[in-house]
């Protein structure tokens, strides 16, 4: 498709910028590298918008009004068989176009914001190089033409996330957090890889187009294969989903995301709120037809994992005091929403509401969560602390931060007419039509979301009037402009963009309505949450402590994130390390090394023993040679004589 020729630059530009900044950053002034990275990102953003515009409004729509996927580029890279080959290319369809917009927009905002936020930091150029690397990897992930390319970029975003979380590599906690994030996601990716291998083994292809075609014939080879009483395809799709669990921080692999907040705040906004963590959602959405038609039971399981994660993270978020951790748990909860929404979706027409709602929520959430993180970054920048106790009464001192944060809180709480309302409403409507249990869990989580977000808001901007060393004030334009821009997007995104005609499971437009019952319920529970937060936290009072004491162990458990970190620690330290690693280390040290050492010892001894033979004394050699020659002659002649005389 010639018209998408320019779209390759969406990938090439950030990659080149990563190389330029990574290799040449040392020789640039920090400002130069920052501006260079930002301009490149701006160009990429324009190209991404152009691509998406072209796809949605001129090229992508087929004659019958459905959206078909387009392979803009495809380079064959490794060929195994005629059908099984790893390609690198660009696969442009509705969801990847939408992701292009999300990633480039948020990335551009973060680039601009970081110009102010990271000013004067050591390693400024490195920071921008990593941002470029991340943008490249994430863009490559969403436009992957086949699952293996996706896996490659999947690992690349993991690496860039690792690098950015550990950006302050002199801080031990940051180093530990980056290691944790990398190891946990890598552990999950291990299952993902097994899943990919299983999938390609049975279907003989990596290609998304072939895999996700309705009624794809390639799944027939799965028939009959099973393991532990569960069919092979269920295993495969479940293992692939495990990769998504790791990246999207669902239970039980969510432990890395709160710790990942050790990274710079704009990084949290970009990677750990808007883009990378939704890769799991994107993965399920990409493979949605397989899940729906081949393994509906896995999709059910996904729905329940998502719902449990949503409520769990919401509860934990209510008790955290580090504002970034509150946002991190909020992110976990909202991503779980999207996953659950996917699981309650059908395929055609109005049945595909869940799919559309999930993508819609992904879109709106990216913007308002990025806004929340960037706002939190502005606050942290002003008061030099992450803790709620160090904040309070900031609403007069930081008006821009106050208003944008409020807008984002209203959006995530689901108040009309902010964007979160529309997407969340669609999710709840889809869940209600599909599964009442999931609906009620999500419904309660929605109330909790409103509660903890406004707890956060009131604790930061009202509560009590603190005395600060430096009077906090709004940051400069480079930090304010992204906030205002994202706030505007947050306000308008919900009703401006007709998601039901653009992004649907089957590519056909359908008519979605706002269900008055669901809308009323969700606004109602959101208001309950907000009022609850108002009562507890608008002015400083004793009620929160009283409630906390009355809840007793439950509060403590919640505050400690239900001890998931400790459980993992126990599992790794006490079970894996002691029962698996220790014996393996023992075998390695004693058996394998011992064998090698023994070999070395034996050969050393042998060489010591026979070293004397090679004395370098020619005469000795000559003597031995002569004796040998004579012995040979005698033997040979004797044999010859015996042979002749016989």
């Amino acid at each position, binding site marked *: 498709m010639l018209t998408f020729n320019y779209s390759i630059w969406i990938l090439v530009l950030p990659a080149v910028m990563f190389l330029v900044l990574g290799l040449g950053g040392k020789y640039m002034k920090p400002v130069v590298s920052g501006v260079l990275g930002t301009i490149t990102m701006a160009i990429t953003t324009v190209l991404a918008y152009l691509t998406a515009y072209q796809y949605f409004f001129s090229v992508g729509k087929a004659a019958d009004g459905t959206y078909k996927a387009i392979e803009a580029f495809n380079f064959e890279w490794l060929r195994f068989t005629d059908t099984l080959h790893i390609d690198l290319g660009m696969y442009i369809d509705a969801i990847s176009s939408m992701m292009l917009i999300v990633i480039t927009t948020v990335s551009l905002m973060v680039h601009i914001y970081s110009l102010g936020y990271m000013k004067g930091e050591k390693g400024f150029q490195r920071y921008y190089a990593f941002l470029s690397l991340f943008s490249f990897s994430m863009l490559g992930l969403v436009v992957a033409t086949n699952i293996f390319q996706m896996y490659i970029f999947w690992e690349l975003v993991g690496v860039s996330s690792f690098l950015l979380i550990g950006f302050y590599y002199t801080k031990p906690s940051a180093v530990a957090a980056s290691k944790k994030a990398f190891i946990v996601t890598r552990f999950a990716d291990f299952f993902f890889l097994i899943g990919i291998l299983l999938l390609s083994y049975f279907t003989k292809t990596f290609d998304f187009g072939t895999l996700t075609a309705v009624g794809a014939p390639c799944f027939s080879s799965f028939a009959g294969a099973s393991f532990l009483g569960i069919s092979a395809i269920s295993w495969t799709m479940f293992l692939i989903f495990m990769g998504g669990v790791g990246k999207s921080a669902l239970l039980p692999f969510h432990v890395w995301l709160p710790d990942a907040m050790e990274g710079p705040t704009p990084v949290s906004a970009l990677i750990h709120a808007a883009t990378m963590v939704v890769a799991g959602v994107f993965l399920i959405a990409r493979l949605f037809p397989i899940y729906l038609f081949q393994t509906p039971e896995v999709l059910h399981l996904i729905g329940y994992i998502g719902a449990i994660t949503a409520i769990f993270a919401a509860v934990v978020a209510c008790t955290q005091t580090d504002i970034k951790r509150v946002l991190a748990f909020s992110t976990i909860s909202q991503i779980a929403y999207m996953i659950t929404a996917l699981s309650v979706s059908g395929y055609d027409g109005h049945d595909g509401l869940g799919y559309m709602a999930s993508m819609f929520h992904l879109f709106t959430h990216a913007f308002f969560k990025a806004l929340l993180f960037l706002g939190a970054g502005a606050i942290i920048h002003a008061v030099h602390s992450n803790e709620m106790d160090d904040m309070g009464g900031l609403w007069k001192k930081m008006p821009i931060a106050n208003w944008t944060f409020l807008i984002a809180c209203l959006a995530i709480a689901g108040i009309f007419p902010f964007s979160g309302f529309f997407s969340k409403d669609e999710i709840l409507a889809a869940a209600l039509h599909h599964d009442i249990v999931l609906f009620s869990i999500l419904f309660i989580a929605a109330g909790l979301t409103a509660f903890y977000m406004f707890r956060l808001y009131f604790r930061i901007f009202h509560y009590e009037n603190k005395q600060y060393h430096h009077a906090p004030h709004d940051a400069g334009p480079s930090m304010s402009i992204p906030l205002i821009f994202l706030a505007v997007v947050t306000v308008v995104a919900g009703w401006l963009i007709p998601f039901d005609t653009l992004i649907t499971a089957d590519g056909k437009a359908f008519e979605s309505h706002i269900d008055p019952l669901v809308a009323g319920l969700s606004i109602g529970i959101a208001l309950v949450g907000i009022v609850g937060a108002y009562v507890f936290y608008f002015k400083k009072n004793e009620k929160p402590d009283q409630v906390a004491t009355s809840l007793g162990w439950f509060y403590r458990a919640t505050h400690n994130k239900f001890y998931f970190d400790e459980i993992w620690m126990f599992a790794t330290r006490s079970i894996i390390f002691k029962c698996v690693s220790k014996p393996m280390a023992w075998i390695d040290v004693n058996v394998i090394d011992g064998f090698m050492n023994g070999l070395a010892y034996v050969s050393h001894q042998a060489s010591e023993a026979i070293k004397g033979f090679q004395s370098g004394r020619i005469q000795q050699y000559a*003597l031995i040679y*002569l*004796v040998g020659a*004579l012995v040979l*002659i*005698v033997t040979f*002649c004797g044999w010859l004589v015996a042979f002749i005389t016989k």
Partner: protein
Amino acid sequence: MVSNIIFFILAFVTVVSSILAVTSQKIIRSAVFLLFVLLSTGGFYFLLDYHFLAITQIAVYAGGVMVLFIFSIVLTSQPGIGVKFEKPGRMLVAALAALTGLAICGHIIFYNVNRVYYYVTQDELKVQDIGFGLLGTEKYQNMLPFEAVSLLLLACIIGGVMIARKR
């Protein structure tokens, strides 16, 4: 008749001189006995009617190589220090090995050489024929070994220069 007597004289000189050459305690004497061996080897070549070979032997060995030996002996001998006596055990082992070899080879020569041969008298070889044989490329002509030897000599010249140059 005369040639037979000459042969026995040469054989006696060769054997005795060679034994003396390897057992003598003074190197210069060894060199002189070696010279006798080389000269009598030339004599053998005369007896075999290979006159050119005999002259070459005397010119190259007795003339060239012996001078080198004498020079090196003079250059490396320290006055007042004789040649060291060898260890008797070592000499015994060497003598034993050499005698065993001699016995085996002698046995083979005297009991197993049974090829029929006729000793034909022949005229003196013409140097012209020798030259053609050396430089031709036909059958029984030896251009290739000749060239190989010339290359070897070149390598020796270079090696000699390398060894002798001052560092």
